[in-house]
């Protein structure tokens, strides 16, 4: 069998897998109930089943017809996704057994994925660095304060763009930093720490 429409094939696979996951997980963990008194599993099982059926139809279509939507260009493959998930799961276990704070473990795992991406999948740089910048912002807010978190997001995010000039990015960083401080901390009095925890 040959895949005639890769976009349909992978989306069909994604829908089938998620549908089955939701349905099976619901049946295994929650009570079904009856149609009159629906238990917590009833609605998700129905929807999961429906999603799986839709997914199978899309899969079947992808094998039968050529989609008119052109080629699929993804800068990574399914093995890359598996590796990324494995890194996070491994990091999660490390946090559990080595007693490291989960925040640092997530940051570390994200950093590892960034490095791997830049070396082996340069085409996915935008995707990974932009996402990683956001993650870094969130997890650095408490230890690094607004100053540290904004720096991480602006520099990592800018690295995901096409051009990266230290001077430009630094000016942008200072402006955004001042703006965030004025509008969000002073103006809207959001309770953000400004400076890194070790200095303040």
């Amino acid at each position, binding site marked *: 069998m040959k895949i005639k429409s890769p*976009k349909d094939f992978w989306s069909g696979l994604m829908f089938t897998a998620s549908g089955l996951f939701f349905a099976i997980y619901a049946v295994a963990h929650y009570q079904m109930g009856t149609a009159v008194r629906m238990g917590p599993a009833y609605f*998700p099982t129905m929807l999961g089943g429906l*999603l799986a059926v839709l997914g199978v139809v*899309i899969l079947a279509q992808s094998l039968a017809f050529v989609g008119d939507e052109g080629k699929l260009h993804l800068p990574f493959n399914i093995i890359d996704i598996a590796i990324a998930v494995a890194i996070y799961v491994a990091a999660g276990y490390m946090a559990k057994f080595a007693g490291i704070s989960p*925040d640092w473990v997530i940051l570390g795992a994200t950093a590892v994925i960034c490095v791997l991406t830049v070396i082996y999948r340069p085409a996915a740089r935008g995707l990974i660095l932009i996402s990683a910048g*956001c993650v870094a912002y*969130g997890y650095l*807010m408490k230890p690094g304060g607004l100053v540290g978190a904004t720096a991480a997001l602006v520099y990592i*995010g800018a690295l995901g763009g096409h051009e990266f000039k230290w001077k430009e990015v630094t000016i942008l960083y200072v402006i955004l930093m001042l703006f965030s401080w004025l509008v969000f901390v002073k103006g809207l009095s959001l309770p953000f720490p400004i400076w890194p925890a070790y200095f303040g």
Partner: protein
Amino acid sequence: MEIFANLWMGFGVAISLQNIFYCFVGVLLGTLIGVLPGIGPVATIAMLLPITFNLNPLSALIMLAGIYYGAQYGGSTTAILVNIPGESSSVVTCLDGYQMARQGRAGPALAVAALGSFFAGCVATLIIAVAAPPLAEVALKFGPSEYFSLMVFGLIAATVLAHGSLIKAIAMVVMGLLLGIIGTDVNSGVLRFTFDIPELSDGIGFVIVAMGMFGTAEIIANLEQGEAREIFTKKVTNLWPSKQDFKDCWASVLRGTALGSMLGILPGGGALLASFGAYTVEKKVSSHPERFGKGAIQGVAGPESANNAGAQTSFIPMLTLGIPGNAVMALMIGALMIQGIAPGPQVMNEKPQLFWGLIASMWIGNLMLVVLNLPLIGMWVKLLTVPYRYLFPSILVFMAIGVYSLSNNPFDVLIMAVFGVLGYICAKLECEPAPMILGFILGPLMEENLRRAMLLSRGDPTVFFTKPISAAFMIASLILLVIVALPAIRKKRDEAFAAEDA
């Protein structure tokens, strides 16, 4: 006349200094993000939602609404001058607007777009005032089975109007419904699909999903496309259209307004669909269809009026039924819920000042927009020269702050990043994110109403087809599905959307 008394009261509330200020902030921001390609009203409103927590409900709604219809004004500027839709709903304006600009008629094109939008905005405001109260009256009689069927109809309509494959759009809706279920089950208190992560027990925040799917995913996609923008730098002169221009386009403005108002009310409708519909109609009725695509002023006037009318009338289902017709309205419902107001037909009776104040503010906002977009056009043109490499880190910072401030929890930002990656993959696989977002917000509501309906009917599923209103929605949904599945209409629909990709 009750309507006039109500509208008068609405103006009384909307004209307070504070509300005028937030209305201005809203339309200013709306124009700004409308002009800038790469950031849309969904991401902007999502970003600002957490901040509205500190405002009173009316000011919050006035500001957020201003962003949505303001973006329709701003989007046309970019379409006409740069040939890039600043907003997805101004895609068709590029066709004739840019050609007019190349012929040195950028001024009249901009003026017609703004004045047409203003006219459409005024009419749509009146339509909301007239149509919403009776609709809410009917909706008050809805029971759980009617609500369930209405939501089925809304979701089906949304998938039919989404472009691309119908079956994928339905699958995305179901995916959204499932993701919406994550969290505590209200009936049994059971934690569903939380995987022992305490942060998930309240469910995934809607704002976080919207910002990931529409915000970060959009930035990533823009970065991949590269920076290829040629700006029409010539000075905009001769703003005022000639007498002939007015003669040519007044009928288009009327038709665009009428069509846009109707399409806006439909679930799944709104600005985007309205502008496409209007362009097709203009081309059909014109005695010189060959002029379209070469700078026909009707091709600017019709769609621009329609998208503004559609943007405004799409508030009707949200205000009267509490059901969002598109992703922006879903965010509006989110804004109401943040304020502790349960959306639905009762809002109009319980909070008349909120309802009528919002409507009155739309008229005020439209007036401000004409001023913002015509005399101050030069400022927006300048803005277009800001390169994307400055813009996207700024947008990222605002999104990250917005999400983090929801509950000062880094986990929320992580989830946003995850949905950004998911949104990116979905875009690559040609799966539309908008239906998923609608499903996501309706998921818990649908389950709740299904449970109640089945409880009342003692487990008899035919109740959805024996109650007249409910049956009407179900039959309408079926008809919609059949129509779209028919090959002839399917082809037409593909053509309509093909124009967008061109």
